[in-house]
């Protein structure tokens, strides 16, 4: 459990736009341990997906990784040669994208989308790849008769299962899940998450789970990181972060969701709107929306610091 699988150090990702440079990920460092589920939370546009894309080095212009390193089992992903990178992708890290509706090619059969990744990375024959594809579909609970279906012939939940089956194809060490259940209703979401948990028990992969739903994350993740305007502002054990948030933004995020189990509480949102990345203020990025903003927050950028070894917070009001 303690062995580090992936280490991100001082990662910066910029979007080079005609009217300036928007820093979507600002100096973020975090690590994912073997077998761990790390949750990454934050509102839309906070850089959580951008960060996830960097792990497979998928960025294309106008996005640019300007600084930092991403070490997968000690090897820098950003310095890999194209051939090594291709082998690393999916073999070591696979991705379940936001919406399964769009991450499956509509005119290619499920069979081919499953087998092509197997055949691209292994020496499996067409026949073996197909057997493996059937096996994978059965793992996620889809009947093998569906193998030659096209995505439009499947329901939303089935498509998401297919995407998960594809993600499992090469038994990677890490699966990045970018809001994998956002497009699904709660019942299907629950089914898929339970199944995912079982699969994790069987295969022992790590998960980077991206979502804006902190309560969901508190259930499934070991640790949670919270991002705001490209900065990692809080990182700690899932239950701790969810039940005892420290950063004012995390507090706002936690109180924006109704609790499923607890008593009825009034919901508090976060006032204001997300920061314009092209027009960042001096000092803390959250100052305009923060209830406890004081003089120091307008002058100095808060650094991630810790009281206890397991908890990091970037706020002057500690």
């Amino acid at each position, binding site marked *: 459990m303690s062995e580090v699988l992936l280490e991100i150090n001082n990662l910066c990702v910029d979007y080079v736009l005609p009217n300036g440079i928007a820093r979507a990920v600002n100096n973020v460092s975090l690590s994912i341990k073997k077998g761990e589920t790390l949750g990454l939370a934050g509102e839309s546009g906070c850089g959580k997906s951008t960060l996830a894309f960097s792990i497979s080095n998928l960025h294309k212009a106008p996005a640019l990784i300007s600084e930092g390193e991403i070490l997968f089992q000690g090897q820098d992903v950003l310095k890999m040669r194209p051939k090594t*990178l*291709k082998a690393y*992708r999916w073999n070591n890290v696979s991705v379940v*994208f936001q919406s399964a509706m769009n991450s499956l*090619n509509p005119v290619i059969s499920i069979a081919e989308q499953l087998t*092509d990744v197997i055949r*691209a990375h292994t020496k499996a024959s067409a026949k073996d790849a197909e057997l493996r594809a059937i096996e994978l579909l059965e793992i996620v609970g889809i009947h093998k008769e569906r193998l030659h279906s096209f995505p439009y012939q499947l329901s939303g939940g089935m498509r998401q299962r297919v995407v998960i089956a594809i993600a499992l194809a090469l038994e990677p060490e890490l699966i990045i899940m970018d809001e994998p259940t956002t497009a699904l209703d709660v019942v299907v979401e629950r089914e898929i998450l339970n199944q995912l948990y079982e699969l994790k028990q069987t295969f022992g992969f790590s998960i980077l789970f991206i979502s804006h739903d902190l309560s969901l994350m508190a259930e499934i993740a070991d640790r949670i990181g919270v991002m705001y305007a490209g900065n990692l502002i809080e990182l700690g054990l899932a239950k701790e972060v969810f039940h005892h948030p420290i950063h004012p933004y995390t507090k706002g995020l936690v109180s924006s969701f109704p609790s499923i189990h607890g008593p009825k509480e009034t919901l508090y949102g976060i006032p204001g709107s997300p920061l314009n990345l092209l027009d960042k203020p001096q000092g803390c990025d959250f100052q305009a929306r923060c209830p406890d903003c004081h003089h120091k927050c307008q002058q100095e950028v808060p650094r991630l610091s810790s009281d206890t070894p397991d908890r990091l917070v970037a706020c002057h009001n500690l």
Partner: protein
Amino acid sequence: MHYIVRQLGFYLTAFLIAISFNFMLPRLMPGDPLDALFSATQGRMDETQMAAIREMYGFMDGSIIEQYLAYLYSIISLDLGPSVLMFPVSVTQVIGQALPWTIFLALGSLIVALIIGISIGTYASYHRSGFFGQVVPPVLAFISNFPYVVTALILFYIFGVQLDILPISYTYDPDLTPGFHWDFILSVIKHAILPMGSMILVGVATWVFNMRNAMINVLGEDYITMAEAKGLSSTRVMTRYAGRNAILPVATAIAMAIGFSFAGSILTEVVFNYQGLGNVLLKGIVARDYPLIQAILLILVVAVLTANFIADLVYVWLDPRISK
């Protein structure tokens, strides 16, 4: 399968309507070619002569329905009467000699332009920040913005007149006897280079841009990012995942272009004196050869409808979602 049957029904209906128009149009016009012939002889033909000629050309008396049925029968039996211009050679024969050349010219240049254009469009959009993607499309846009006649005449002048390395007239060397031997085939290819080349040069940019626009839409889709995250080879992502989907909107444009390619070949055939249908049509119009003109229009209708039907079949094969 339902889809194909439905489309077939649609095309048969369209064909019937088109040939009915083809039947009605000359009859809506005042007079007929014989009147033109009559006035050309300045009234020195008497009524019996006129009637004999009229009958020979297949202009029969009788009710409009009888005429229509006779017209339909003439189409089915491919007996479209003699040509006025090349009397007594039958219209079917005149067209039979010219049509293969036009098909060769129009479809040949379209297919080559498609292959080149779609390949360039796919590659240039997938590598759009690279040298190729930045330079080639603007250059092609520049070339294709000349009117066709200008491009054709420039090629004509450079390769046909100044350098004198390519023939500028006829479909093959008239000294040769047509047949399956090398001299003849080589001669056909040599004679086709300029007319086909000019059509390809003008046509290719259309496909580059059609394909590029479709590609750029597709390249933003999540399934492309997923295909890349899967570590598939760039070639596979570019062709199978992006190109495969981008070709769908382009396929519709191809179906329409087949019709235009026949129309476009008329001008080419005139510039390069190529003995195809366009050349025959032009001569027919000048000579008011109504049977010939009618038959060529009929051929064009059949060609366009057949091409569109084939395109529909291909579309079903390309996009499995259609047949539902």
